[in-house]
């Protein structure tokens, strides 16, 4: 949606537009009734426990915040506003390696102000978002608007929209219809 550089002022608009679409879609799929969420909550809680505590430890095996800093450095170096295919390929490999490394980090149980647990959930989302950004930027072999590829400095003859769908931990990139003029 934003290419490499979310232009100023777009964030609020995006939150309002996608928030409304998400809310309306969820309401339409709910069937109007009050669903019993207890089973969904129990399964989500079990999934979080597995994410946080693959093993019982008394001290975090690695600092999740340090892994987050590594991801930020990768995105800064190789997925910034001006990028090339070689940089993006390097970023993709680094993101996937970091995801495997982060997944296995066991965290200490914390009851109050559990920053480490929150950070691991955030890091999972940051890795997913980073991978989506890089995959989309790799697929778009052109320069258009705020999306700049130094190895493809001109816009392609036709504008194409891409759609990324999440399947488990993997993204699937599909080309959608060309954007009509």
């Amino acid at each position: 949606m934003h290419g490499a550089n979310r232009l100023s002022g777009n964030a609020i608009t995006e939150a309002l537009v996608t928030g409304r679409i998400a809310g309306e879609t969820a309401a339409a799929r709910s069937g109007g009734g009050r669903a019993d969420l207890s089973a969904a909550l129990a399964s989500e809680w079990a999934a979080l426990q597995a994410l946080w505590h693959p093993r019982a430890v008394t001290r975090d095996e690695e600092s999740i915040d340090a892994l987050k800093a590594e991801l930020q450095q990768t995105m800064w170096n190789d997925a910034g506003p001006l990028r090339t295919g070689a940089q993006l390929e390097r970023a993709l490999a680094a993101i996937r390696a970091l995801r495997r490394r982060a997944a296995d980090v066991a965290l200490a149980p914390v009851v109050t102000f559990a920053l480490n647990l929150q950070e691991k959930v955030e890091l999972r989302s940051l890795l997913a978002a980073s991978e989506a950004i890089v995959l989309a930027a790799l697929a778009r072999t052109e320069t258009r608007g705020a999306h700049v590829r130094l190895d493809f400095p001109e816009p392609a003859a036709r504008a194409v929209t891409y759609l990324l769908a999440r399947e488990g931990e993997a993204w699937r990139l599909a080309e959608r219809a060309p954007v009509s003029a």
Partner: protein
Amino acid sequence: MSAAVTRLRVSRGGAGEPVRVEEFEVPYADGLTLLEALIWIRRHRDPSLAIRFSCKANACKECSATIDGKPGYLCTRRAVPGATTTIEPLRKPRLIRDLVTELF
């Protein structure tokens, strides 16, 4: 000559527990803020240190703490090479853990 460091004496512990003071040595670089020094500790020494912050830029006030006995923002106060800075939670709001209190 060894690289410059700054030292932080940090209050640890939860509500109702006796306060433990832990001292950390942090590599100093020009412009290093106390908040950045605490983030360095979480990344390289002890990820269990509880701190609260958001903007890192003197706007949100979430990183308020007691610094050398006086209230201030960790994100705007610079660390001093070779010196020791004492960092405690704010005194009035209820303590949650380490440097984190309720928000006023």
